[in-house]
């Protein structure tokens, strides 16, 4: 009887003392991140210097506020109304009109879904317009993309899609859609890898 009690108490004791974790404080990394994140203080580290010469604008979408590269100064022939002095309809029927933008081939969705006027505003070429004909600034062209690509938009806002600029610390700066995707041909072409390890080939012979 007493031996049984002894064994039982030993079993209970070993259960109580069998925490294998060395550090003792946390059971998992997740727990540690959550707990230590609750008492987070700003580190004072800044990534501002690493954004470099890129001119940025600040945007706020939902809960997220961050910087994206400014676009208008990067478009070669902006402002558009320097050529498009009249509404598009008026210019198309004029006899002196030269064909412009002949080199742009639209390969975005299919012809039924999209054409130039889906995004560009024929009456005011200096800005874009949404599907419901609301004006959209060239600097905030992501607002057009997000009309269809809503999942990508959510991921981009959170930071899971789109390349970060500079550093991990504040302020956060990220590429906007058109910095990587050509809006007229958003599909990214395949290419060759930048390196090939010839030593690895030799090692594995």
């Amino acid at each position: 009887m007493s031996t049984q009690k002894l064994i039982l108490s030993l079993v209970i004791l070993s259960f109580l003392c069998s925490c294998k974790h060395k550090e003792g404080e946390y059971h998992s990394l997740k727990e540690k991140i959550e707990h230590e994140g609750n008492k987070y203080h700003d580190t004072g580290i800044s990534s501002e210097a690493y954004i470099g010469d890129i001119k940025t604008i600040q945007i706020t979408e939902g809960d997220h506020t961050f910087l994206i590269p400014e676009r208008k100064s990067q478009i070669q022939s902006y402002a558009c109304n320097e050529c498009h002095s009249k509404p598009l309809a008026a210019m198309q029927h004029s006899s002196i009109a030269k064909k412009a933008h002949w080199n742009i081939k639209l390969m975005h969705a299919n012809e039924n879904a999209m054409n130039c006027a889906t995004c560009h505003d024929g009456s005011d070429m200096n800005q874009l317009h949404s599907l419901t004909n609301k004006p959209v600034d060239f600097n905030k062209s992501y607002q057009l993309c997000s009309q269809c690509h809503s999942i990508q938009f959510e991921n981009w806002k959170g930071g899971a899609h789109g390349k970060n600029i500079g550093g991990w610390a504040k302020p956060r700066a990220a590429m906007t859609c058109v910095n990587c995707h050509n809006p007229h041909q958003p599909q990214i072409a395949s290419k060759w890898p930048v390196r090939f390890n010839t030593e690895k080939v030799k090692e594995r012979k």
Partner: protein
Amino acid sequence: MSEKKKWFTLDFGFNKENATTTTSGCGCGNTSGGCNSHKPAPIEPPVATSCGCGSTTGSCSSHNTPPPKNEYTITADEFDAAVEDTMVGETQKDGFQQVFDVKMDRRTAFRKLTASLLIGAGAVQTSCSAIAGEETKEKAQIDWEEQFKGNYKLMTQEERDATVKRLVRSYQLRKKENISMSATDASEDVLFGYAFNISKCQGYMNCVSACVEENNQDRNSQMQYIRIHEMKDGEGFKFNEADDNYYHEVPAEGHFYMGTQCFHCDDPPCVNVCPVEATWREKDGLVVIDYDWCIGCRYCMAACPYDGRRFNWSKPEVPQAEVNKNQHYLGNRMRKKGVMEKCTFCIQRSRSGKDPACVEACPTGARIFGNLLDPESTIRWVLENKKVFRLKEDLGTEPKFWYFMD
């Protein structure tokens, strides 16, 4: 039964009687000389004993010496003081003292002295030579001090700054060029983490190239910390069937790409196995190596379940024009033959707020880096909103490198 043990014997005095009656045998097996280890022998046994040293020509000196104080009868206070001396003192010693204040037997001492003297002789010869110039002497002085410096982990900030200064000066003397090296410490409230988007990686390998250039990796052996694995769609992670050295247009039809590197585990198995504590986990989660303390045993390489560590089989060579001069002591400073190295999440960049080179180089945005403790960071958003997973999670190594898909 030699009383000159290298370890402590816990003894509360119960063995007193035994001690006086044990026959003292010497197992040294010395055939020509005397058995000197018996000089501070315990109280002679009352019965006559034979000397077990096997000496055939020399005398067994142990039997002639008068019995010194019995070592086995120390008081508890003395015992505590002895423990204090060896154990506590050890942890408080700086790197320099660690080298010199080690208790060792005569044989080891001679061996170490000979090795150090050989190195020192060269240094002394050049530094004492009247013909040698000031620069040669300075080089010798630097080499001397570098030879006897301690483990970086245990150095004081002054010692760290001093060794950094020496290394910068040494490079300047040898290569006639200036480098900048830092010994920036981990910041409070920072824990670095990394996320990798498998859907986005296209296998361009820009990350690999940027990493090699940033971290001054050996060009001859084409060492690379990052490996990009090309895997077949629909077959999951099959590393044995994956190709990590492809050369064709990418992305290849029916394949996906995923990268591996050091995952900076929160419970790193590589650190536990290092016999000399030359690798450790920093407060901000980076697992680093002191290249000057590493002995090149490659235990860590064997212990890493992710193939994250690399070994310098030959002297690492980087063309002088390509050397990245922005360096960190624990990061991309020049390594030597026979030491381990690995990804440090570009410690020289990340500690000052910059993204690692691979993150900056990736044209697809598949690589996300940030502070896990900052609830507003992008890495935290990914962990909380995407379906993330880690490699070999069941090992409990807690890598700080997550994979996810769109």
